[in-house]
């Protein structure tokens, strides 16, 4: 079980800010594939991966990063702070 968080328009498209996900994926990319296969709203949210960033346990990572030992995955658009 892994905690998955969504922010900004990813949160709006998926409809929840966070959820617990049962996954056997070994990488972030594998997790995204599982989510896309679940429901249309995930497919919509992850349609353009160039516009999606990911953090593993609150550290920026990339889609090839392994999920072993990770407790929290967050997906969000490019950041617009400042």
């Amino acid at each position, binding site marked *: 079980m892994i905690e998955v*968080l969504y*922010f*900004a*328009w990813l*949160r709006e498209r998926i409809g929840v800010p966070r959820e617990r996900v049962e996954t056997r994926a070994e990488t972030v990319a594998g997790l995204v594939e599982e989510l896309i296969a679940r429901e249309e709203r995930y497919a919509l949210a992850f349609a353009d991966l160039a516009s999606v960033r990911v*953090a593993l346990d*609150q*550290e*920026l990572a990339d889609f090839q990063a392994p999920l072993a030992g990770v407790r*929290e995955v*967050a997906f*969000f*658009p*490019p*950041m*617009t*702070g*400042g």
Partner: protein
Amino acid sequence: MKISVQADAFDPGAELNAFSAGAAGAGAVVSFSGVVRDEGGRLSGISIEHYPAMTGKAIGAIAAEAVERWDLSDALVIHRHGDLAPGEVIMMVATAARHRAAAFAAAEFLMDYLKSRAPFWKKEYHADGAEWVAAKDSDEDALGRWAG
């Protein structure tokens, strides 16, 4: 080093004075503050979402890098989240160093990284709806000059 992520408004002038008072050994203090633009009346407000578990960590790492790289005597970052009206101050950074070039460079570095590497997302509200602010290529490009 003071880092604050907060919903409440803050007083940039009071923050600047408190920061400068602690920087008597420094000589040079630079501040940046970001104000919600009114876009000639077309913008009714913005809201800023963030990732609470990550925000403080990410800003702390960026600020610590700035302090080390430019040998700052101190650094300050305050960033608001939640709903803001035009004219309100969104955030500020301040840097203190012995010489002005270091204070300026460190403040620009902090801003460039906060723009693109701290987990904040802005949504703008207009009369005809709301939309998430898109990241600018120029903001991503700005990071390049700090490499190496």
